[in-house]
């Protein structure tokens, strides 16, 4: 499993638009699962509504993890996505 911490910089937090783009991205790694954790809660990044329901705001730190055959590729792409969009 690969993981990293990320602090949200977008003033709106993880809102619908980037959450949707994130979910789309996360679904594209086949058997490799991308998860988001915050305060002991873990959801799959592809679970769009659950991700939004975590209410992640600007300044919050989340842990992103990837698990599976393509985890290296997945974690890098997700890191790049977060840095560019959130």
């Amino acid at each position: 499993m690969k993981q990293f911490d990320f602090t949200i910089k977008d003033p709106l937090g993880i809102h619908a638009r980037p959450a949707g783009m994130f979910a789309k991205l996360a679904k594209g790694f086949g058997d490799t699962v991308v998860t988001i954790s915050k305060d002991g809660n873990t959801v799959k990044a592809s679970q769009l509504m659950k991700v939004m329901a975590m209410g992640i705001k600007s300044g919050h730190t989340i842990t992103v993890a990837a698990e599976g055959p393509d985890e290296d590729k997945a974690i890098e792409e997700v890191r790049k996505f977060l840095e560019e969009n959130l």
Partner: protein
Amino acid sequence: MILLQGKGVSKGVTSGPIYFFRRADATVVKRAVTDPEAEKARLAEAQEKSIEQLNRLADKCREEAGDEAAVLFETHAMFVEDEDFVDCMMQTLEEEQCNMEYAVQQAGEQFAAMFAAMDDAYMRARSADIKDVTARILNNLMGVVEGGIDSDVPVVLAADDLAPSETLQLDKSKILGFMTQGGSGNSHTAILARTMGIPAICGLGEALKPEMEGRIAYIDGETGKVALEPDEITLAAYNAKLKKQQEMKVLMDTMKGQKDVTLDGRELMVYCNIGSPEDLPAVLNNDGQGIGLFRSEFLYLKASDFPDEDTQFQAYKAVAEGLNGKRVVIRTLDIGADKQVAYFDMKKEENPALGVRAIRICLNRPEIFRTQLRALYRASAYGKVAIMFPMITSVWEVRECKRACAKVMKELDQEGIPYNPDTEIGIMIETPASVFVADALAKEVDFFSVGTNDLTQYTLACDRQANDLGKFFDPHHPAVLRALKIAADAAHAAGIWIGICGELGADLSLLETFLAIGIDELSVSPSSVLPLRAAIRKSIAKTCTLEKLES
């Protein structure tokens, strides 16, 4: 032959199959089902259809409005397939052994409630997205069609009555005419029909039955008669009228490109009333000289939350550009009274017509006002925009509106956004108070426009929505016409112009009175422009008298 009698509210004859309007929010009923697999298959089909629609909307948006709006629809498409959302539906389906509609509705409510309970305003607002998506899936599940009309051929649209937000969503290319069980000449269906220039009959009551769907109706928007399977005599009369209507149209086409001038050289401005940018073709086809009333409510009525500045700007800009330098008078939001919008969160009023409506909302809630004014001023860089404030009763209100305008202009200056600093500002004359202080109001603004429906309602103390006031609701009442004269005299003394943007403007029996009073502009439904022009060109202004003010 079956004959129905209603009230004709928009002239013309037409015939076509009857089609009953399907409400998009058809009620979901819980039913027991024995074959859950069949329900799942129905959901899969509805999901597929929903995603297809949303992707199409996203594509359309990307072409017209840009990426930001498109992504919203793509996000909606993802909601449709969201694992947890769908799991929730499946769980209800299995536990309750119910129909899919009920399961979808339950899931929608549960997820909307989850967002509504969050402490973040942005996330709370997302519950509207969930409701939107849920409604879409339900519509597809129940075969409800967006735009309300699932027919390949144009139809005569039947309904109990249509709400403003419903008339906005209609696919207008498929409507030949309207007939409704309720409604009145002032209802939104009637206004829409007149804008489109197609016949409408309201107040048909219970005689208009849903089982009439599919039968051919012959309707006459002047007499208010509807015939099914007409006998020979009725059909002959219908055909004669249709022929006359077609000849009239040819005759009216000769009025295009002509001036709105009387035989003795008095020029009038004949403008159009419109309700959305979609009405623009009707204005151009009927050769309107401008737009005297662009009702901005459509933006608010069709949205599920306050329309943002850009959405408004795009709509105003489209109309300003479409008119190519001709004047476009845009009225700021006239919500309240008969036009209610859920997200405005208005308190229930005993007397909404006398309540917090129109400019009163704007002055109480400056943020809503500011957004609209910014959009209007930005649009002023793209054509001849004029801003009009409704429901004015006092001079201080106008001054406050002008202060709000000045503030917005200053903001735009600082941001380097172009606008026209000489944008005309006008007010609606529709309350008796505004007539009494018209002389003082005229010094504050660039024009007056009289809203005759409301002016009649408030002057005669007659509710314009009430159907049974009949002869008491009389727009020809000398009190109303005298009010017009007082306002016109005040306008001219201050050197500004005055128009009429209510339905009365198209009333040819009052044209001479309007000429005698000295009305400068008449703003009417696009379909009334050419008949009005023909009447003006036959009039002699000098010989018109004020006799109707006396009787």
